[in-house]
């Protein structure tokens, strides 16, 4: 990738004041994604320097009393556009009713303090910016107090703050808005005392989302809603097989439509395609449908699901590159065959299909450009747009647009969406080009959660606990061939393939995990909770099977098998046990299923109540216990878990798979690839948070892995069958 390019972002912000804040994790290691910061800082290819956070870049106290807080993340449902302002406003003692939140453009100052690029991923929005936003808030408050103290000729410690007002001795008081101008001239304190949790006024409280009303009355603008003067709509025909190339095309019928402005061949991330530019969406779509394209599909692999499963099943029966080995690998063979379990699992490709179809808008002005993208990877996408246009990255003003979901799909290493938009915009200088991928483009467009096969051999000890565990996983690497490979592939194993298994909290004395990362002609990508989507399913269904075999309660069995160090998960299990008393008193035809899993430093335990209706699992209830450190906004945590469980049901849907035949994707839209509707998701979800003042950890991804194994564990009780192949075509 573009390791040599270094964007010198000009914020166009007043950099009068600079805060010195050392990077939270320079040289550190993020366990969840196995990325270390120096290597993740792709643009510079060097360890990030100590960061400076000018308060102006994050907070603006307006004369009218409104307090604008800039959010350094994409808002795509996770609630960060409310939670980060809460954190800053709390330390600032701002009047919450006057807080306005804005999404930040791409700029150096808004990079994730841990990852070193501006992004949403790894459930890090709160975890990585909690300290950052507290400090900016506290320092801004200190400057406001300093201004008031000077005005009143008193010392700062004689002043206190509340609801955007500084109070001094006597009956002195001044609103922040009055003080802002003087405060801006005060030096930024190097150090500042942060609140202790008992002083929090917003953090830890149930605060409703700031974006709720606009999202209920149609006024919220998403990337796809952007309307600029003179804007044109672009669509691209992609090759029917990844990497295919246009041999020739006939655009006579397409160009005959009024409102069609351009038709031309463009290079794609894989192969080439044909772009259509028109005045309107419907014109562009009609024109696209009229194109006659002759494709060159020679010399490229034509993936075929049936053949791929055959290949994967062969591979999974051979040892792969070692991810982790503990104890004696041969211990398994010493255990009698009757006490061994052999289990093979299959997981299909999954599409993310966020509700807002993929899009990007770019206007090229020759020596500079502007981009509007609902992006999880702002600074990488900015570089990609710049590169496509032959500009330096600082010549691209990059706006973060609200996104209608993402789930990883808008965090793409090759930035193919904004890159396509930029290539089209390049031919139409001065004209804003909105590239729209239709739903069909999205479903068929690749960047899927990879298909996986697992094979697990377990030797059960006399105590019913696993004494030996040999585990082989087959699945494409998410990062092979990209700059991410250097730090995410270790000993030939993509760490995202084995996360959730290799680092399990279960204590198995003889434990061996290896993996194959075959190369296939299918672009793949992280899908909300990444490797945990399949590893947690395998681990939690097998643990359940072992508990059943040992005739033990599934919670008690897990507790016995967990390492004592797995304190977060143990606390979550304890809370779950307290809150799931309903498990012992279920109506006939219903069963409870249990699972627990820790990922992204958040531990989750889950119980579900399931019956079988119309040959499908009906999830009547879910109870989850969450250990995410301090819950900044418990309402959002609850919401993320209630809905994240439903998202996780995607894996169980009868049509929850992307499949290939002769190189072509067999599904085209939600009729063929069907995410959960209301009746597929749990009817009720009660969420219980383990009380904690530890540093907050993420809640975006951790809900997803637990639901599918819990549901099939319940199904197993109802049917006596074990479910090892997804999607769940039949119960």
């Amino acid at each position: 990738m573009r390791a040599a390019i270094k964007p010198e972002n000009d914020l166009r912000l007043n950099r009068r004041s600079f805060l010195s804040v050392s990077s939270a994790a320079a040289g550190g290691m993020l366990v969840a994604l196995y990325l270390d910061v120096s290597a993740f800082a792709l643009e510079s290819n060097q360890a990030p320097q100590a960061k400076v956070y000018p308060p102006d870049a994050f907070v603006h106290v307006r004369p009218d009393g409104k307090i604008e807080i800039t959010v350094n993340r994409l808002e795509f449902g996770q609630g960060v556009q409310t939670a980060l302002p809460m954190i800053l406003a709390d330390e600032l003692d701002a009047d919450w009713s006057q807080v306005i939140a804005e999404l930040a453009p791409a700029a150096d100052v808004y990079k994730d303090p841990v990852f070193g690029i501006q992004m949403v991923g790894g459930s890090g929005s709160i975890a990585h910016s909690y300290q950052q936003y507290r400090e900016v808030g506290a320092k801004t408050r200190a400057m406001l107090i300093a201004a008031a103290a000077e005005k009143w000729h008193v010392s700062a410690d004689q002043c206190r703050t509340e609801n955007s007002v500084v109070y001094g001795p006597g009956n002195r008081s001044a609103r922040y808005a009055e003080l802002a101008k003087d405060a801006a001239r005060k030096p930024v304190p190097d150090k500042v005392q942060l609140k202790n949790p008992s002083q929090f006024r917003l953090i830890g409280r149930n605060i409703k989302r700031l974006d709720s009303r606009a999202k209920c009355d149609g006024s919220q603008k998403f990337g796809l809603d952007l309307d600029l003067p003179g804007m044109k709509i672009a669509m691209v025909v992609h090759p029917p097989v990844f990497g295919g190339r246009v041999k020739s095309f006939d655009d006579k019928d397409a160009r005959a439509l009024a409102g069609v402005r351009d038709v031309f061949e463009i290079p794609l991330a894989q192969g080439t395609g044909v772009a259509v530019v028109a005045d309107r969406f419907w014109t562009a779509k009609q024109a696209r449908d009229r194109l006659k394209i002759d494709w060159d599909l020679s010399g490229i692999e034509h993936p075929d699901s049936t053949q791929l499963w055959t290949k994967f099943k062969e591979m999974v029966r051979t040892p792969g590159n070692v991810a982790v080995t503990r104890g004696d690998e041969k211990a398994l063979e010493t255990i009698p065959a009757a006490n061994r379990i052999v289990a093979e699992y299959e997981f299909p490709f999954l599409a993310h299909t966020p509700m807002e179809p993929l899009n990007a808008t770019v206007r090229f002005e020759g020596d500079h450009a502007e981009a509007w993208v609902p992006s999880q990877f702002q600074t990488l996408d900015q570089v990609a747009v710049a590169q496509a246009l032959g500009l330096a990255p600082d010549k691209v003003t990059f706006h973060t647009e609200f996104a209608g979901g993402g789930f990883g799909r808008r965090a793409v290493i090759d930035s193919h969406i904004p890159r396509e938009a930029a290539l089209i915009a390049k031919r139409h200088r001065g004209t804003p080009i909105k590239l729209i991928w239709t739903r069909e483009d999205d479903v068929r467009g690749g960047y899927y959660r990879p298909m996986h096969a697992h094979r697990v051999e377990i030797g059960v000890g006399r105590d019913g606990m696993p004494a030996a565990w040999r585990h082989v996983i087959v699945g494409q690497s998410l990062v092979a061939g990209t700059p991410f490979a250097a730090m995410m592939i270790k000993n030939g194993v993509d760490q995202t393939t084995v996360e959730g298994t290799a680092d399990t909290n279960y204590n198995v004395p003889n434990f061996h995990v290896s993996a194959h990362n075959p190369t296939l002609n299918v672009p793949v990508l992280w899908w909300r909770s990444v490797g945990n989507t399949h590893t947690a399913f395998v681990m939690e269904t097998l643990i359940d099977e072992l508990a059943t075999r040992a005739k033990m309660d599934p919670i008690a069995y897990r507790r016995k098998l967990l390492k004592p160090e797995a304190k977060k998960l143990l606390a979550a299990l304890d809370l779950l046990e307290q809150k799931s008393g309903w498990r012992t008193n279920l109506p006939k035809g219903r069963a409870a299923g249990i699972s627990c899993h820790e990922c992204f430093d958040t531990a989750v335990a889950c119980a579900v109540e399931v019956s079988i209706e119309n040959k499908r699992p009906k999830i009547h209830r879910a109870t989850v216990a969450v250990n995410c450190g301090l819950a900044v906004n418990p309402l959002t945590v609850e919401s993320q878990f209630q809905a994240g469980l439903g998202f996780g049901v995607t894996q169980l849907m009868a049509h929850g798979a992307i499949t290939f035949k002769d190189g072509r994707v067999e599904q085209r839209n939600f009729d063929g690839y069907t995410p959960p509707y209301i009746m597929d998701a749990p009817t009720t979800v009660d969420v219980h948070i383990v009380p904690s003042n530890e540093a907050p950890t993420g809640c975006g991804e951790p809900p997803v892995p637990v639901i599918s194994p819990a549901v099939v564990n319940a199904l197993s009780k109802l049917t006596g069958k074990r479910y090892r192949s997804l999607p769940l075509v039949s119960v």
Partner: protein
Amino acid sequence: MLRHRSGLLPFLFIGLLATWMFVGGTFGYGGDVKHAPDSRADGLAAWEQIYSVLTSPRCINCHTATNYPQQGDDRHRHFANVIRGPEGKGVPGLNCLSCHHEANADSTGVPGGPDWHLAPLSMQWQDLNDKPLSSAAVCRSVTDRSKNENMDGPALLKHHQEAELVLWAWNPGVRPDGTARTMPPLTHAQFVTATRIWVQAGTPCPKGK
């Protein structure tokens, strides 16, 4: 928007007529003395032709036994959880009319016709596993006036000749990908001719389950 509703009066009229005919003993299947034996054979042969049309996807997809319609030549369950609803017209928020309008919407591939709706459960031509019922069973159902909205032979003929949703089967529009939907195995004219022969033969039904 114009929304056709089935007029109640014609049904009442047909109902009265049918009651009169039933009481008068002039209606029945198979046993009508006015028809010669070979006419019954002709009628049964005609029925098999009719049956081939009724069980074609364009017709049978909306004659399910379940709480949902089907779609496509493979007669898969209608996507997006579309259900029958109390009157065979879906439910509020998810009505048939939410997508199916007065006429085929060929630019978007959605079929349409006046008062698009499911046939009543009494007119189910499939079992609960979505398998078409036998020729004998469909015939019994079609001729059972307690199930068929009280239609006698002539009324059935008229229904096949004129009912707008029946006619739609021969004007089914295009699929979302722009290709033409498959039509029933007979032309509409052949279908009407077969129905006429069958009705003239006294709407005989094959024996069997």
